[in-house]
């Protein structure tokens, strides 16, 4: 009989990822990144592998509500985590407001970076609402007060998501539309 898929070894662990509200119990080699677990094991290919080094943002997902580069997270270190991918943002047939705005504003060309852009924007909007500052937030801005998302703020806060088609103007417009 083949060894069961639920067996741990020195170099693999059994762990549970809650992805878009559904628990997935997986046996994973410790080298598996969260990105590869999502794409290869869970079957959700929305999060993209761009650079695979945390430099492009195409792999951005929300981990326990916060945006992160899933290519740099080891799945083994996220046992029990709640992960939201681009596939989990819509409410049934109703798109998330950020998704809707990307469609309305034509905020993409090839679309490869789009799932990462959208997940990053969702996380960024929550950070701004919680009063997280950015490098361009004026020093006199009261700590904890929601940040006013000017185009300058949006560009700075989204700088971890590259778009090689250069759709930035419409990406900034789309996010700005949701922010106001």
């Amino acid at each position, binding site marked *: 009989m083949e060894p069961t898929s639920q067996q741990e070894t020195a170099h693999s662990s059994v762990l549970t990822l809650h992805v878009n509200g559904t628990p997935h119990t997986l046996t994973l080699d*410790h080298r598996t990144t969260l990105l590869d677990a999502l794409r290869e094991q869970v079957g959700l290919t929305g999060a993209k592998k761009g650079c695979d080094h945390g430099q492009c943002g195409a792999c951005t997902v929300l981990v326990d509500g916060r945006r992160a580069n899933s290519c740099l997270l080891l799945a083994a270190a996220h046992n029990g985590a709640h992960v939201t991918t681009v596939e989990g943002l819509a409410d049934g047939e109703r798109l998330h407001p950020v998704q809707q705005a990307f469609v309305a504003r034509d905020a993409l060309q090839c679309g490869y970076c789009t799932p990462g852009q959208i997940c990053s924007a969702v996380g960024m909007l929550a950070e701004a609402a919680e009063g*997280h500052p950015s*490098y361009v937030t004026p020093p006199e801005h009261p700590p904890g007060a929601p940040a006013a998302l000017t185009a300058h703020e949006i560009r700075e806060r989204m700088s971890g998501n590259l778009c090689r088609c250069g759709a930035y103007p419409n990406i900034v417009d789309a996010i700005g539309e949701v922010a106001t």
Partner: protein
Amino acid sequence: MKPFAYFRAESADEAIGAFAGHPRAQYLGGGTNLVDLMKLGVAAPDFLIDVSRLPLDGIDETPDGGLHIGATVRNSDLAAHPAVRTRYAALSQALLSGASGQLRNTATTGGNLLQRTRCTYFQDVSKPCNKREPGTGCPAREGVHRDLAVLGHSAHCVATHPSDMAVALAALDAAVHLHGPQGARTVAVTDFHRLPGDRPDQDTVIRPGELITGVTLPPALPGTRCGYRKARDRASYAFALASVAAVLRVEGGVVRDAALAFGGLAHVPWRARAAEEVLRGAPATEETYARAADAELAAAEPLRDNGFKVPLARNLAISVLAELASRT
């Protein structure tokens, strides 16, 4: 990536205990640098001890009016903390000038201090590098070194320390708390990183099995202002070509207290003590700030392609000091 064992520690003692007998173990914080280095083959631990969820995620007032920052506090949370925003603005600005929103949500305070250089030769296992493989040589010295050191480098290594946070901590006189097999100790952040000398493989004074448990900031003195400014190749999401963290107190047009540190210029966050000597007691003018920067940068030994960093750092220092003085 080489296969490795994994263990999630619940306490600092448990993590340190797990390290015993595993010379090729490494602690895992947020992993934003370490996991990347493992993918590149630069790091190849056989055992990862996950310390990212240790109960060291607090930011607490100290009895003397300073601030204690736990090692697992995320960079984004530290930058947003009201006490950091108001009393240690240079630290908040430095953190926010580094990496991206995603990376700051993941990277930890301890890990930020321990991140490795982004020298391209260090990150490319097909190239010689004294930091990665002692004794193999330093091709950067004659090769691609535009981003690398102008101060304190050696024949063996011209790498720079990439952290912005550490530069602010150096100017703010922070202390690093370590816990290890031989017990706990505290090291000034300015003594934590080391110059390359003939041992560029050792970035810091940390000992095998030692774990950073936190960082303490001394009280912010009344009347002082602090700030951070960074120059880079693009407007956001890039490492510093040069950066400056400064703490300044001006009274009656005279500099009473000053602390200055440069980033992007050396193997360590470079505390500019010679500049501070010039600043203290001198008129708070741009002429003074220029003299101070020149006093520090007189020690610069630029390489073929990075001489631009010297006037860049000089101008950054002058502008940050002038800006801080204008707010006092």
